[in-house]
């Protein structure tokens, strides 16, 4: 069993690569699940994903897909890990949806939980996870710890009053001077509703904290693939993974790569094609330099995927994309 996390900044082609790698695994006879977030329409229909729910759906031989639904996942988290009397009250709270969306790394934590559930099911040989785009995917790895520090943190303790508080605290909520001002700013109805919610949330802490450590364990054991282009923003996102404990990538993939040979080409071509080659050659050279700097700094040999004019729109084109990649060691990735 191997979990493969596809991470990287926005717009670099993570979802497409996840789909391509999943297909490559399935074609090798490996039972594969690909979990994705928000695929482009053409890619989604290529994979048959437009009818996809959050439960695994068969897409091709050996290949299943599942869409991540953060709201549903948080409902599941509350149901699974909060005390039985608290869970339903939490999910029924009018603040539940907005609050879970506001949690730091909320979507990432929900995705990591879904991944862990699928790993534990034992149904799959390979699980590929297209990680949420927030903060270049780095949040995915920090989300379990951040969730613990939110729920067990000083803020929640301070607000709900030291050790696990009784519910009557709510009715004395504005007894303290600071909260009286908050009351004037926000109105007591809102404050009471929020306090009630937070008290229930704290009661769920032990269960969620224990679970978050299991999730962390699976994240540490997973293969990590970082996708980037040679542009500064995605490169700086990619750099963050090397600075993260337990986050060091097993593989870096440069997408939208131009042949550097274009820069050195000397063939004279008629206008406007000569000038066109010069500008694309300049761009190819810039890309190659950025790639060399990155490789030297982090001691990696990146895989490269050529710049395709169109996002692959069917299974055949996805296969072609993976075939056209250089330096992609699939055996290692799926082992």
């Amino acid at each position, binding site marked *: 069993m191997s979990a493969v996390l596809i991470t990287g*900044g*926005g*717009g*670099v082609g993570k979802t497409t690569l996840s789909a391509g790698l999943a297909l490559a695994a399935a074609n090798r006879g490996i039972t594969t699940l690909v979990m994705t977030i928000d695929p*482009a*329409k*053409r890619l989604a229909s290529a994979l048959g994903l437009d009818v996809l729910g959050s439960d695994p759906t068969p897409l091709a031989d050996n290949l299943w897909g599942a869409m991540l639904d953060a709201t549903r996942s948080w409902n599941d988290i509350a149901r699974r890990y909060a005390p039985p009397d608290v869970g339903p009250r939490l999910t029924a709270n009018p*603040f539940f949806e*907005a*609050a879970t969306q*506001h949690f730091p790394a909320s979507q990432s934590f929900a995705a990591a939980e879904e991944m862990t559930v699928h790993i534990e099911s034992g149904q799959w040989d390979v699980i590929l996870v297209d990680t949420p785009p927030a903060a270049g995917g780095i949040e995915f790895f920090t989300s379990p710890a951040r969730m613990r520090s*939110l729920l067990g943190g000083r*803020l*929640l303790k*301070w*607000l709900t009053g030291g050790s696990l508080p009784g519910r009557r605290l709510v009715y004395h909520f504005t007894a*303290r*001077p*600071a909260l009286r*001002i*908050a*009351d*004037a*700013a*926000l*109105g007591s*109805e*809102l*404050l009471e509703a*929020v306090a009630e*919610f*937070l008290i229930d949330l704290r009661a769920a802490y032990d269960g969620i904290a224990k679970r978050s450590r299991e999730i962390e364990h699976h994240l540490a054991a997973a293969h990590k693939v970082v996708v980037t282009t040679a542009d*500064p*923003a*995605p490169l*700086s996102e990619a750099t963050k993974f090397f600075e993260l404990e337990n986050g060091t990538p097993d593989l870096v993939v440069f997408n939208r790569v*131009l*042949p550097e*040979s*274009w820069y050195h*080409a000397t*063939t004279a*071509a*008629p*206008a*406007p*094609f*000569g000038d*066109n*080659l010069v*500008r*694309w*050659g*300049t761009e190819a*050279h*810039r890309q190659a330099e950025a790639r060399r700097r990155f490789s030297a700094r982090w001691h990696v040999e990146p895989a490269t995927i050529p*710049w395709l*004019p*169109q*996002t692959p729109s069917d299974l055949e084109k996805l296969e072609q994309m993976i075939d056209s990649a250089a330096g992609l060691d699939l055996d290692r990735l799926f082992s």
Partner: protein
Amino acid sequence: MLDKRLLIITGKGGVGKSAVTAALALRAAYDGKRVLAIAMTDDAGLAVHLGIEQLRYRPTHIISGLEAVAIERPEALNEYLRVQLGVPRLAQLGPLARAFDAVASTAPGIREVITIGKVLYETRKGTWDLVVADGPPTGQIGSHLRAPATVARLVGAGKVLDQTGWMARLLRDTTTTGLIVVTTAEELPVTETLESLVAVDEENLVGIENVIVNRTLDPLDGDIDQLGDGPAKQAALLHSALFDEQERWIAHLPDGPRVPYFFGLHTPSEVAARMADLWGML
């Protein structure tokens, strides 16, 4: 575009939203305006495009006429409580800020109202001729723009409610405020752009100033078939295929400014400077 008092820039991640923000701010400053650039949710992009390491809550001087800030908590929260809610003494801010923070992490719209509130407050106070805000990505722009209304529904009473009216009005005032959506001519960014245009329009949250298409290619005239095999032909084929694909997506968008693909530029600040020069020629 630059005759507005507030421009909020949004777009899908990776399309060049921060580059456009920086370029517009630089251009307006070159033209002699007093300009404030604000990073609303993520400050790294705007900082590098303005050629500095990091933005702070206190204004950083960029060039003559241009200052830049990032909206950081808890500073933004403290200022909101002090200036907008009129909380009297700084000593009381600590615990209040914590209570507020808990509510803001729980109730919808409160955190967003503090962020957009800072942008609107800077616009209203009259220190600047133009405020240019590097806004949240298209996925979150709606929740920010409708935050005053969300909070007004949620908060039955209190000073926060009193603040929401002028915010929504200033956002909707098309002589003052405009939204700029940046996109590239690709499927996902264009789809997200169109979705955000519909949402903003239906709910009448803010006037749309422009849709800017970034990294566009020009047509390559000439007969590619006459070229022999080799790099020149490969580059020509890639260029025309990319151009055709771009045209296909541009056809879905309203007319607006196009920013060309800048070949071979190394740093974000080079990109922003080149773009600012370009605005000058428009």
